């Protein structure tokens, strides 16, 4: 008997988890084996993620019942188009980040184990079908991210890390309050079951459930760095080592994924969400774009500059996702692009900082780079991609979002924010580039870009190019994902109708 394809859903979570345990064990006996094993596991998970995306592309929603319990009672893993997209993106970023860590990994203990834990947490957060396990996987990926962030921490990184940890712990507490409030009101934690029960609640309970939804949006807003909650991001990302910062490019996208999941899949049937929730998130998204653009212009260091570009893209994605199905489709395309671009930019600017001696990533007069041509070209390509200029895929993403944004008068603000932030980001990057590459004195003393770092950047560049060459297919997939999200009944139906498999030799219960 061949196992059903649903069984593969658990592998992207379980494989890195086991690998993490194995890597901890090997750390004492065979430290040299760690990096190859970690890379093989990450590659396997990435390949599997693309296979799962191919399954999701047949419009089939995969449901895996853990422990063979029927849906609302047991834990489920659900693979719809959005989850598969995020898994595949995580796979690419993880492989690139791991390649870039080839040199760094020798310096600190447990890097590979924590990296695999983070991978398990990310994949779990994208696959889980109930809100409490979303909390658990958030914690898994956060604990791993704390450790990765503080991998080579000095004083500044420690303080940034402390802020990051405390903010996320408060977020976790709010998440628990929201999840238990939802359970207290509806008696369920399963996304699909919640979606079915929420519209049928009496008025008073519905108010409580909406309060819980707002709390959830606060928590996910912290992760996605939406405006009043995103001040931790530039400092934290500025303190992370290069490959970790590249991996963190996907971390804000976890928050965006969770916001989309809650507003569409869980609260999609609630008119209150479309009438109040979506416009509020739209406005917050626009304000985040403005704040990110201001920060990008104001900062005097390269790494925080890229972090502010992350903020701009976060705001843009959230604002676009609230403008209807076509804009959401464009936003999902842009999400893939911006994650790849930002991850690549983090690798490049850290390589630049490594060649500038004590000046590091601060603007202004410093020693010349060892490889000005290579890094200059990479910086130029990365800057064009990160600012979303033509001819790269970011421009296609922006066009898709703007085309899909509709005719409502309030959409003018979105156009202004998207185009204006692109312009300001271009200014900021051009100023940074000219300052770093042209204002130099003295002798070049830095180390050349490590081979692993080059491989990581090359992989992200290839992925970005493929996203551009196959833009038609990618745009079709993201539009189909948005359409699937706009019909939460498909998700709920698939989850609730999944029947447990009957064990061999026994009849089905």
């Amino acid at each position: 008997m061949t196992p059903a394809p649903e069984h593969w859903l658990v592998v992207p979570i379980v494989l890195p988890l086991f690998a993490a345990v194995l890597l901890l064990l090997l750390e004492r006996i065979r430290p040299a084996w760690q990096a190859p094993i970690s890379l093989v596991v990450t590659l396997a998970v990435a390949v599997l993620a693309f296979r799962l995306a191919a399954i999701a592309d047949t419009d089939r929603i995969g449901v895996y019942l853990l422990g063979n319990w029927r849906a609302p009672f047991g834990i489920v893993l659900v693979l719809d188009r959005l989850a598969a997209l995020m898994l595949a993106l995580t796979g690419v970023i993880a492989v690139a980040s791991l390649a870039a860590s080839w040199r760094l990994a020798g310096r600190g203990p447990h890097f590979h184990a924590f990296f695999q834990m983070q991978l398990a947490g990310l994949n779990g957060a994208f696959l889980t079908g109930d809100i409490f396990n979303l909390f658990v996987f958030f914690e898994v990926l956060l604990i791993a991210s704390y450790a990765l962030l503080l991998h080579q921490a000095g004083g500044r990184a420690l303080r940034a890390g402390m802020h990051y940890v405390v903010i996320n712990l408060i977020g976790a507490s709010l998440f628990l309050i929201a999840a238990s409030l939802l359970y207290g009101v509806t008696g369920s934690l399963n996304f699909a079951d919640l979606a079915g029960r929420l519209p049928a609640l009496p008025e008073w309970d519905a108010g409580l459930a909406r309060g819980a939804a707002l709390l959830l949006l606060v928590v996910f807003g912290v992760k996605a760095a939406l405006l009043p909650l995103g001040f931790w991001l530039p400092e934290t990302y500025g303190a992370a080592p290069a490959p970790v910062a590249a991996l963190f490019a996907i971390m804000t996208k976890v928050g965006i994924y969770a916001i989309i999941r809650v507003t569409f899949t869980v609260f999609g049937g609630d008119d209150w969400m479309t009438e109040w929730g979506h416009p509020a998130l739209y406005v917050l998204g626009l304000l985040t774009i403005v704040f990110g653009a201001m920060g990008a212009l104001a900062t005097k260091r390269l790494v925080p500059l890229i972090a502010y570009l992350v903020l701009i893209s976060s705001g843009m994605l959230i604002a676009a996702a609230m403008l209807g199905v076509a804009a959401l489709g464009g936003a999902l395309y842009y999400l893939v692009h911006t994650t790849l671009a930002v991850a690549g930019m983090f690798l490049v600017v850290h390589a630049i900082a490594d060649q500038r001696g004590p000046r590091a990533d601060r603007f202004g007069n410093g020693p010349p780079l060892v490889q000005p041509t290579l890094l200059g070209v990479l910086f130029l390509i990365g800057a064009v991609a990160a600012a979303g200029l033509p001819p790269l895929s970011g421009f296609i993403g922006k066009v898709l979002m703007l085309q899909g944004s509709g005719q409502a008068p309030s959409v003018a603000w979105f156009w202004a924010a998207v185009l204006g932030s692109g312009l300001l980001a271009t200014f900021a990057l051009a100023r940074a580039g000219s300052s770093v590459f042209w204002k130099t004195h003295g002798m070049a003393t830095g180390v050349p870009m490590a081979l692993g770092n080059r491989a990581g950047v090359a992989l992200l560049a290839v992925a970005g190019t493929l996203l551009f060459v196959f833009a038609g297919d990618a745009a079709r997939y993201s539009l189909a994902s948005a359409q699937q999200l706009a019909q939460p009944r498909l998700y709920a139906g698939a989850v609730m109708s999944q029947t447990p498999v009957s064990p061999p030799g026994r009849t089905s219960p």
Partner: protein
Amino acid sequence: MTEWLFASAIGVFTACGLWLVLRARTFDVVLGLALFSYAVNLFIFAMGRLTFAAPAIVQPGTQATLANYADPLPQALVLTAIVISFAMTALVLTLALKGRFVNRGDACDGDEEKRFEDVPR
């Protein structure tokens, strides 16, 4: 009466925790986080409804409804939440200790001046 006591306990924990978290020293923040997690754990527990002397495991002979039993799910959730918050408190304490030695101070509001005040070197 039980509900009133329970609710005000959650309220007091939350208020104290919030006040401590907003202070500018790591140690106070850690204590605040611990109090906050107590409040959250009690809240999760209360979401299973407060029952008196009701078992969580189904016994033969008694009809399996929530009128006769305590809801076991929030109890399981509370266990998970307790474990996670415990581990997190340990992690924050480690971080705070390391920060105290590396940065020579436990202020955490980013104010460079205040960091070196009255902390024994």
